[in-house]
């Protein structure tokens, strides 16, 4: 199991009556590519916060890659996230004022990998695989187009060779052509690296790319807004 949620309840501190999540049980098998559809405000961000270890549940067990996140300390969760989880946002995936290579070096900085001699070579290989041309490596990432930025964002998410990749509406700011290009680039990377993918979006038209399609409201029984 890549992800296993048991008896999860979550409310923000000070608002015990406003339960955002109530998930009796949900899991994702290793190597699965899951599409979870949910409208904004359906507890989606909270779920991803729990899975990435930025939030801890008010009740229940969060097991990611066999480790109990809810039993770890903050430092351990940070370390775990850096080393094992890749994350792609809708936007602001990169520090806009530093270049693509530095963005990847920054992401590698907090992971458990120590050997940095090979890191630059790996970054360049990764850029090659994601069709990021050399002249874009050294420009501040804000100067890149949105499509280019999202490709560098994939590279940033993959640089630490995570076993779990979480994509949070990564295509929502892209037009159709860029969206398809993005998916065609992402999916083989996921398959080749045998990663588990959790892709969250409101855009059901993308569901054909995935082995498992679910709606958040199917397993979250909470009605609250969050």
């Amino acid at each position, binding site marked *: 199991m890549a992800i296993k949620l048991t008896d999860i309840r979550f409310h923000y501190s000070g608002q015990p009556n406003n339960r955002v999540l109530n998930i009796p049980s949900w899991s994702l098998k290793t190597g699965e590519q899951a599409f979870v559809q949910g409208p904004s405000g359906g507890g989606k961000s909270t779920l991803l916060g729990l899975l990435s270890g930025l939030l801890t549940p008010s009740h229940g067990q969060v097991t990611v890659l066999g480790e109990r996140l809810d039993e770890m300390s903050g430092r351990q969760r*940070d370390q775990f996230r850096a080393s094992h989880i890749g994350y792609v946002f809708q936007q602001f995936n990169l520090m806009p004022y530093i270049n693509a290579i530095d963005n990847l070096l920054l992401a590698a900085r907090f992971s458990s990998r120590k050997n940095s001699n090979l890191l630059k070579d790996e970054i360049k290989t990764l850029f090659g695989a994601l069709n990021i041309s050399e002249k874009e490596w050294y420009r501040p990432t804000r100067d890149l187009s949105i499509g280019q930025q999202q490709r560098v964002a994939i590279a940033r998410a993959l640089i630490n060779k995570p076993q779990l990749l979480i994509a949070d509406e990564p295509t929502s700011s892209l037009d159709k052509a860029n969206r398809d290009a993005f998916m065609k680039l992402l999916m083989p990377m996921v398959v080749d690296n045998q990663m588990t993918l959790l892709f969250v979006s409101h855009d059901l038209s993308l569901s054909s790319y995935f082995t498992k399609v679910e709606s958040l409201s199917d397993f979250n029984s909470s009605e609250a807004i969050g």
Partner: protein
Amino acid sequence: MLAKLSIHSLMDRKGSVMLSLMAMTVSIFVLLGVEHIRHQAKDNFSSTVSGVDLIVGGRTGSINLLLYSVFRIGAPTNNIRWQTYENITNSKQVKWAIPISLGDSHKGYRVLGTTKNYFQHFSYGKKHHLEFFSGHKFDRLFDVVLGAEVASKLGYKLGDKVALAHGIASTSFSKHDDRPFTVVGILSATGTPVDQTLHVSLQGIEAIHIDWQQGVKTSNSTITQSELEQADLQPKSITAFMLGLNSKIATFQVQRAINEYTPEPVVAILPGVVLSELWGMIGVLENTLLLVSALIFVSACLGVSAMLLASIRERRYEIQLLRIVGAPPYVLFLLIELEVLMITLLSCVLAGGLLAVCLAVLHDTLVSHYGLNIEINLLTEDSLYLIAAMLSASIIVAVIPSFSGYRKARATSV
């Protein structure tokens, strides 16, 4: 990597960072400047007179004696008899003596009657002797040697005639204009009260007062120049005198002997000791100045912190991104501290450079107008301590935005 990130982040917010940097630079400039000038002024001040072991004058307070004999400030309480001077200086322990006679002035500058010993033995700073910018010591009765400032401010050159005035006010109604003095020498600038003094011989002082009684000129002087030169112009009293001793060890012994001199009430002071007492009194002012500049610096620190605190809100995506790649919350704390440290460091460099340039440009003006000989080298031990203190202060003040960043990072989710 963090340093690189903070540099780029600062450069990304050029506008507000530049303004903070300028505020910081100005405040550090003021603080470094005040501290540097303060030290230099103190050095200058304490070295107003050096190599003089004792100053002897009529019984009065020690600071008063120092003020009128060295700084030409205020009026002597009592003159001392020439006999006393001779008795004391005849002692075996006395190496040399410089008699001083004050009381006249020229356009607000004091006139000092003395002997040639003055040019030979008086020293200031690190045992610098007086040097002639042009001309030579006084030889004849009506020769005068000018201090550097007197010559430059009043535009005198060698050969000019100078009429002295009785008393010490800048506008005097009783002038010794019947017996003008000739400028024969001009001293180099020293940064001490010597620059503001006209030096004549003791006999010259006697000569211009020869037909005066009770401080008033008797009408129509009939004594001619040649008669004067022949006359016995041995002074009957002088204001004070400076002593150089054969052995420093004997200083206290000689001082006590002079203080116990019975024929006339006299007092001997150690100039170094009294100078530091006097500086202690002036010190209140300079400490106030230092305090004010320290407060300016603290306000600049607070300004930088406020700028960073305000920026935290607009940087919430940066914080989120750092958290998602695994940065623990304390990294945000470090990052913001680092940014403050960099602004402060850069400001120190800029302010130091600016101050060095200013001092270099103003060096000559400061010496000639204010008698302040300020060294340009800023890298003294004291200024390094000051810079270290400023860096520490900025780090402490930066805790406010840094902690805010830390809390923001802790509370961040996706």
